């Protein structure tokens, strides 16, 4: 076969038709463009495929089979290309199928954990990692757990009814007996839980108590008559103030960041001795911020729960959860924590 063989020429022209047609359908970008390509190639009257079909009649009958087979393949390819192009441009132009991707999403409604809970849970996790288990006790306490066992004697001013919420029990005796009497009260500190834990178990003890405490402070941006404390207690043979400082430093760094340093300032609490205030300083800051109180469990407290202070020693610390929470979340008014305004709650 040579190139001037009429069959070869016709087949070559079919191939050219195929590639031109495919290219026309592929590049057509609009329904109009696709239609134009269809008319040009697949038009029933003057389409080029139609012309190519006509050509078969000009060929020698012996060549017609080969030409016919090739023609059918080309025609099929072009019809598929047309169909693909039609679907492609139709989808593009169909307004119902298009989404405005800049519209906001439809959100599932989820609630929010209170920031105080988030703070408390974080504290439980952090102290849990250094071996402190959660302990609990009642919020309405007897004076034994709130005062006596905490080395706060009957004459101590801390028992003053002006500074505590005692339950109303009709007439209270005055002038005799302990200050404030011996009626139950809302606990003024979570240290009560220390006593309950130590009364119930033998050393070693490593617990934190988290919960509500109550003091009749005048309510303002930084004071609430009800607030939350976390109290830690560790009692064992050989527990020292260096352990206390190390635990608090571990906590401060884990909770607030590696560039936090802490210091102890002497203070006074009846249930610890030595007693200290714990301050912290952020790197780059120039003000020490009070974090809470701490100290070595007073020997009288150990004795009150039946421990031998010559055998074991212990430390205790107490931190205000509101203060930590407010500092962490840039909350400037403690009252926001108890108003339960969902515009506030849904930020956390």
């Amino acid at each position, binding site marked *: 076969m040579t190139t001037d063989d009429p069959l070869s020429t016709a087949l070559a022209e079919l191939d050219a038709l195929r590639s031109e047609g495919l290219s026309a359908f592929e590049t057509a970008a609009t329904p109009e463009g696709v239609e134009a390509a269809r008319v040009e190639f697949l038009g029933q009257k003057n389409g080029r495929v139609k012309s190519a079909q006509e050509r078969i009649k000009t060929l020698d009958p012996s060549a017609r089979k080969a030409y016919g087979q090739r023609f059918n393949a080309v025609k099929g390819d072009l019809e598929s290309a047309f169909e693909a192009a039609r679907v492609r441009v139709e989808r593009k132009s169909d307004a119902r199928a298009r989404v405005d991707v800049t519209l906001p999403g439809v959100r599932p409604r989820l*609630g929010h954990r209170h920031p105080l809970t988030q703070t408390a849970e974080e504290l439980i996790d952090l102290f849990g990692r250094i071996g402190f288990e959660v302990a609990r006790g009642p919020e309405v306490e007897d004076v034994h757990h709130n005062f006596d066992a905490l080395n706060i004697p009957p004459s101590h001013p801390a028992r003053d009814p002006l500074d505590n919420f005692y339950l109303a029990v009709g007439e209270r005796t005055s002038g005799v007996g302990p200050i404030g009497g011996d009626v139950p009260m809302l606990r003024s500190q979570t240290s009560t839980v220390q006593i309950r834990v130590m009364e119930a178990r033998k050393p070693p003890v490593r617990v934190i108590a988290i919960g509500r405490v109550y003091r009749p402070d005048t309510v303002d941006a930084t004071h609430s008559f009800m607030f939350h404390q976390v109290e830690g207690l560790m009692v064992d043979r050989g527990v020292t103030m260096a352990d206390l400082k190390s635990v608090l430093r571990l906590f401060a760094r884990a909770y607030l960041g590696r560039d936090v340093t802490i210091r102890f300032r002497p203070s006074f609490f009846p249930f610890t001795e030595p007693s200290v205030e714990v301050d912290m300083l952020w790197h780059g800051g120039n003000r020490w911020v009070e974090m809470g109180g701490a100290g070595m469990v007073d020997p009288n407290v150990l004795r009150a729960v039946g421990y031998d202070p010559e055998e074991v020693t212990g430390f205790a610390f107490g931190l205000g959860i509101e203060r930590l929470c407010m500092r962490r979340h840039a909350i400037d008014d403690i009252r926001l924590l108890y108003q339960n305004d969902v515009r506030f709650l849904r930020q956390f």
Partner: protein
Amino acid sequence: MIVSWNWLTDYLRLDISVEVLTERLTLSGLNLEDFSDVGGDIAIDLEVTSNRADCLGHIGLAREVSVLFEKKICVPNPEPPTSGPPVGSITGVAVEEPTLCPRFTARVVSGVMVGPSPWWMRKRLETIGVRPISNIVDVTNYVMFECGQPLHAYDLDRLNGRRLVVRRARPGEKLTAINNKVYDLTPDMLAIADADRPVGLAGVMGGLDTEIGPGTSNVLIESARFDPISVRRTSRALALFSPSSFRFERPIDPEATEWANRRCAELILQVAGGTLHPGRIDVGAHRPDRPAITLRLGQLARILGIEIDRATVARILTALGLEPAGSDATSLTFRPPSWRSDLEREIDLIEEVARIHGYDHIPEDRAVPLSSTSRGHRERVEGVIRETMIGAGLDEAATFSLVEERLAAPMAPGPSRPSLRVEHSSRRRESALRQSLVPSLLTARQHNEAHGQFDADLFEIANTYAPRSEGVLPDERTRLAFVAGRDFRGLKGIVETLLERLHIAKPLSALPVEVPMLATGRAAELRLGDAILGYMGEIDPAQLESLELREACAATELELDVLLREAVLVAQNRPMPPFPGVVRDLSLVVARDLPWGELEAVVRAAAGPRLEAVDYLDTFEGGNLPEGTQSLHFGMTFRHPERTLTGEEVEAAVKAVVAASEERFGARLRG
């Protein structure tokens, strides 16, 4: 306690800056509040803890500074000249209540000239915020702020009988104090009286009638000790607080009593002239025992975690004014000075050594012994509860335990006991300990509505407090409560989801109940097995109105203890069924008041062993159904564990269900 810098320099040289001084004081126990320049002097405001009454005077502070900076301190030893007849011939003091007044000293200066104080004294008092009054009164204040011992000066000529009696006030007695207010006295209160009437409240405030005035010429100086509790009670009972009562409530230096009296006389002579009569009245002049304390040196490391050498320990304690009282190879014994009655035990000495040595010596990088813990059961259950509540679209609230009486009642059927209350003037209205969390949450919902937020669906986990007939402490229970603007089934669905998330196997049952807070016919008691899990329902419209709530809502309150007891935290895998289940739906027409739960029980009993689940789908009423009936539409899933069920088996079970329902409830298939 406000301190004057210039005043301190009377007792020791201060060649340091105020910053260095206050930093060191802060780190040894006297926290700096603030300092400010006051016309050539510096006023330093220090926080003094209640155990350190010795630091409520300039001399005490000077002692502390002398220890910290190793400086010599010079305390005046007043020896005022005397003349004329002895004091005992001019006046007398009788102490009728020696336990409330362990010591009373008095001196008399006659012929004084009352007038303004010299400028230096006025200036010092002004620096520490005390208003100068007259030379005599200023001297008593000056000496109090010098040594911490409060004093009082009487106009001797105005004392009936020219003498004093320390006794309990008599019923009906009144006193006009120097603040011009009249106080009703009671026998609880210790009075200083003359022959006829009270002229002062011991340790709290003097009387107006006998105070020093421009015409005063003969002065009786009182320097005494009073029982701290008695002073405190009197002061609190009358809401009368003074620098004097503040000091007497604390343990003051018993040996300063006599010194202060002498010092006061000396300064009066100096600034107001006159003659001091020889001798003093001194009732109950006993010196309290000051037992020696032994410090075992090994205890320092045992408590503090650091070694401090023997010489340093001895130096610190001696500098603090403790007198050595013996020693052996392993211990030192000291007797504390009179002004440190807070030092009684070995641990007190350990703290003294530690704070002066400095807590910065205590390391903060000790390896804390490991102890393995995992989150407790309760924390984990609470975690699942919070997760579920949040997933249900509820926000967590934190509401106060103390509420108004009307918001304190329990959300439970039956009569309730009156709520417990606290006794405090700051909470006259909100004084009740709540027995339910729901009213607090509804109040929070109202707050939100008032701020334009009508979708405040809230939950809280907190305690409730119920009175108990026996035992001292109330019945305190932690509960989970939630309120939401949804209907009964909306909230019941949250309960069911919660039980599923806690993998609680016991079935939940609900019984209709009447609860005051909840709408009639729309409330239920929830039970898990035999235990009451809690109560729930739609809030009664009258309640909504009284709480000023616009939107309808429902509430649930559950006992945390029951959830804790039943919760399974580690869920177990069950193999997936290998054979397909067959689902059949039925619509049965029954009486309108037939509870689904009763029909369900009959369905379960009748459907045979291959029934796997019954799922309520919906209820239809009206249409072409007969009056007084409803159609309950539900699905049943059947499955055999070992093979595929045949259609005949399922049809037989369905027929049995229909037959049993018909027999029991007259149910018929809905056409």
